[in-house]
């Protein structure tokens, strides 16, 4: 029965298993003194669609250069860039106070809003920030208390590695703890598919991932749309970051500049449902 403790870890770890050999290869090539041809970008699953598509476009333009992208969660991304196992750490949350001294340089690459999503069959269309907070803290447990039908509310939460959870907790809950009875799922896609199949559920995902299978409710009377995020009226929004150890240089700078170029910003970032930094608010 010993092997059971050796069982493979989560899907996210499988991603690492794919990326790790690649990291080793890139590590070897840089040690060999040759110009770096592979860049490793690790972190937020929210940023994955931007970083991945940008990486493919980048490779099309520079056939000899390759950008490897992995989605392992913002915290893991920040950790890996700090340790040097990846060149760019992507994060959908700001640095924690204890991370500020790690020498990471922040390049904001897009804006994001977090939508509170319910099943399309749910009659509830609007919540206040306070109601959303009470629901996720477990203080409101029945849909009838927020204008819905008399059914228990089933919470769908993200794991603690998630930048989306971190941001939602900070912006909506004000740091109060989530109801521990909520289901904890390791990815945005899973949250969406579970809410899509379950009539009484509620979850939260980046606006970029909201599709027809779920319904985003308005918060404090503001429907999350590109416009309300851009003008800053939608309350649950945040900045997406690329972190590098020191100022981006060489291949990392080339890639960061490419992500900030209008080709990526006005196409890839928008297609993923995020807002370009150039047109952002404030």
């Amino acid at each position: 029965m010993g092997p059971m403790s050796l069982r493979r870890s989560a899907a996210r770890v499988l991603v690492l298993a794919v990326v790790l050999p690649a990291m080793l290869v890139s590590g070897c090539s840089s040690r060999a003194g040759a110009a770096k041809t592979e860049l490793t970008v690790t972190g937020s699953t929210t940023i994955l669609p931007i970083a991945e598509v940008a990486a493919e476009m980048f490779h099309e333009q520079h056939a000899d250069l390759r950008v490897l992208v992995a989605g392992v969660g913002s915290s893991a991304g920040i950790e890996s860039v700090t340790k040097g196992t990846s060149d760019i750490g992507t994060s959908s949350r700001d640095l924690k106070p204890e991370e500020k001294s790690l020498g990471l340089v922040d390049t904001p690459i897009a804006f994001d809003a977090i939508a509170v999503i319910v099943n399309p069959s749910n009659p509830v269309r609007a919540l206040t920030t306070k109601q959303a907070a009470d629901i996720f803290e477990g203080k409101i447990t029945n849909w009838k208390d927020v204008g819905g039908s008399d059914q228990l509310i089933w919470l769908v939460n993200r794991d603690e590695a998630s930048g989306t959870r971190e941001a939602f907790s900070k912006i909506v809950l004000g740091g109060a703890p989530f109801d521990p009875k909520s289901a904890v799922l390791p990815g945005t896609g899973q949250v969406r598919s579970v809410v899509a199949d379950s009539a009484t559920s509620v979850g939260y995902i980046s606006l970029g991932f909201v599709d027809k299978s779920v319904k985003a409710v308005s918060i404090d009377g503001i429907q999350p749309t590109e416009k309300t995020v851009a003008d800053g009226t939608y309350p649950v929004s945040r900045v997406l970051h690329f972190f590098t150890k020191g100022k981006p240089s060489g291949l990392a700078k080339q890639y960061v500049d490419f992500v900030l170029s209008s080709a990526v910003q006005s196409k890839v970032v928008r297609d993923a449902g995020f807002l370009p930094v150039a047109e952002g608010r404030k």
Partner: protein
Amino acid sequence: MTLDPKPDDRAVRLSEGSGRPNADAAPSAGSGLSTISRATYFKEAALQNLFLVCACVAVAGVALIFLFVGWRGWPIFAKVGLFNFLGGYVWHPTKGDFGILTLIVNSMLATLGALALGAPLAIGTAVFLSEVANPRIRDLVRPAVELLAGIPSVVYGFFGLVLLRPIIAKFSGGLGFGLFTVWIILAVMILPTIAAISEDALRSVPEGIREASYAMGATKWQTIWRVLLPAAKIGIIDAIILGMGRAIGETMAVVMVAGNAPVIPNGIFAPFLTLTTVIVMDMPYAAGDHRTALFGVAIILFVISMIFVATIRIISRFGKEVG
């Protein structure tokens, strides 16, 4: 271990376990009995040492894992205290609460429910394969059961998540995560383990016992229920304990359908977190005491495994004494 020398091959008897041939059995000029060649002698000795090395690798593997997990996990017992670690029911590591009682209870709930569903099914399968099925049907069913054992657990999990969970969400009114879903998946996963070992146990009941039972006028059902199952009891209990081990250690399939809430579930359709799934969920981001606590959880899983193995050994010994 001992190589039994047959009269015709004139092999020397090699000493048991020491990995070295007996000195007195070494070939020496003039010794009438040891007529094997020097080359044969060294080949035998080399093979014996090779098998010893194989066995040592397994033992060393277990020892290394145990030492490593123990070394990394021990500090958490020192820090929060063994009693608080095992007896605390709040698992909120990022807030400094390291109680795993909830996780232990959840693992037990998941395992016992899976056994309650899976064991009767598996033993029924074993009885069918060993006593009821004609050879043609048996050749069809047995590979199918064996195939169940070969399916990777992540495939079970994916099946549960994508197919089973939405159905259970529909009729339960919840999310479809929870004990009920886990029980179904685990019951199917432990079925081949329990069925295969129970079938072996049933087959090893001497044919004479069956014939005696029929000769007494017992029907097939009476023979199975009153004679064969009691006779194979020890082997079937071993099978169930091995199934338990598989169920409690299962991780990938469970993490996908359990819902991972660190509370004792309020009903069989509510999400819950177990000893194994907490390691998968938290390992990617855990740091400091949190990571140490996960190794602490691994120690507990190790201890549970050892208890299961020890139980099987004790039961088997007991079975030999009474049987």
